[in-house]
């Protein structure tokens, strides 16, 4: 599903013979793949297989043990991507609205924070402190970063964790919209998210 959209440079990711290790133990070796604009790649693997490690390596937080990661059409990879990890990155005392404001500033977000809240069903919660959010509401807030500041590459680690059926549908919608605009999505999942993957990577043995 390659498409035209606002990401004019249309970045791609390519991994060549990637191998990663944690705590001295090799998790996987010689993983290669190429992600084109509009692609949605699902990363599968059992608990502890290395899905999170792979995503954090792609995001640049971890150094690979071997092989290489190439970003095409992205001058500064860290500015071309969003990373949604297991941790939501919320401050318990701050309100939903102030998280949105902060992220808009931090990532140079262009879109109205209200729209982002809307797309994830948070509009009624804008003034609530993050501390008082339910698990699924907190996850939605974390996902709202994707919509808040348009970036072409999304690295998502179990993005649907704690979401209800409605939340999963919203997530599928924004992923589809993102692909339609030429963005690309890599998501580690245990169960299919909804959108048809263009490729499935399985890590671990």
């Amino acid at each position: 599903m390659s498409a035209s959209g606002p990401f004019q440079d249309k970045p791609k990711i390519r991994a060549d013979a990637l191998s990663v290790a944690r705590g001295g133990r090799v998790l996987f070796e010689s993983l290669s793949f190429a992600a084109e604009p509009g692609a949605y790649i699902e990363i599968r693997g059992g608990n502890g297989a290395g899905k999170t490690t792979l995503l954090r390596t792609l995001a640049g937080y971890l150094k690979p043990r071997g092989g290489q990661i190439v970003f095409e059409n992205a001058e500064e990879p860290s500015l071309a991507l969003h990373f949604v990890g297991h941790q939501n990155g919320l401050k318990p005392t701050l309100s939903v609205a102030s998280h949105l404001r902060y992220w808009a500033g931090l990532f140079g977000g262009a879109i109205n924070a209200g729209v982002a809240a809307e797309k994830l069903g948070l509009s009624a919660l804008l003034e609530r402190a993050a501390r008082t959010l339910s698990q699924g509401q907190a996850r939605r807030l974390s996902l709202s970063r994707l919509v808040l500041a348009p970036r072409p590459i999304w690295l998502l680690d179990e993005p649907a964790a704690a979401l209800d059926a409605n939340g999963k549908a919203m997530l599928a919608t924004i992923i589809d919209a993102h692909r339609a605009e030429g963005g690309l999505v890599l998501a580690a999942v245990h169960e299919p998210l909804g959108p048809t993957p263009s490729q499935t990577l399985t890590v671990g043995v």
Partner: protein
Amino acid sequence: MLTYLANPARFMAFSAWAAPIFLVAALALLAIGAPWGLFYSPADYQQGETVRIMYLHVPTAWWSMGIYAFMGAASFVGLVWRHALADVAARAAAPIGATFAAVCLITGSLWGAPTWGTWWEWDGRLTSMLALFVIYLGYIALWSAIEDEEKAARLAAILCLVGLVNLPIIKFSVDWWSTLHQPASIMRAGGSSIDPSMMGPLFAMAGGFLCLFAALLMMNMRAAVFRRRVEAARLRGADA
């Protein structure tokens, strides 16, 4: 009386007229006491005119301690009988008590500058008053740090009660400590050596400050109750 007022609705009805009355009484007593003390009472034979600070200093010292005791009682009621109005009362009293303590500290050190030749002396009384002030600050800070009001009320009540136990301990240990090193201070005017002509204005001022406390307390409490009502209405509106 107290059980009667424990009902928030009755408290609101009562305080609606009682608060202004206490305020007027406070202003009247202060209006009598202040000029009496400032202009018509004798200057101290030794301290001269500065003794007049006493009329501000001593009542605030008394009531800053009295208010803490009041908060302790209210906290106990709030904790044991889960009475929301008692929590509100304890919280509403704290900033008033802290202000009284601050006024006592400030007037005391203003007084100390000419009499002792220093702004501050680590005397037992001064030290325990400063400790009381810090305990007030801690109590207020705890309240404002916890958003969930019900939880904040009970946690602050626990702290207040522990502080109640601690206050006499501080006072006793500080007294013991400053008798160890007798300070070179000249705390001349002891309670008994006060000239009878100073008693009248002093008691007028003390009564005035007590009424002021009662009035401010009720006004603070009313504001808190109103705020809770607005909050409840807002939540009900959000549900609908």
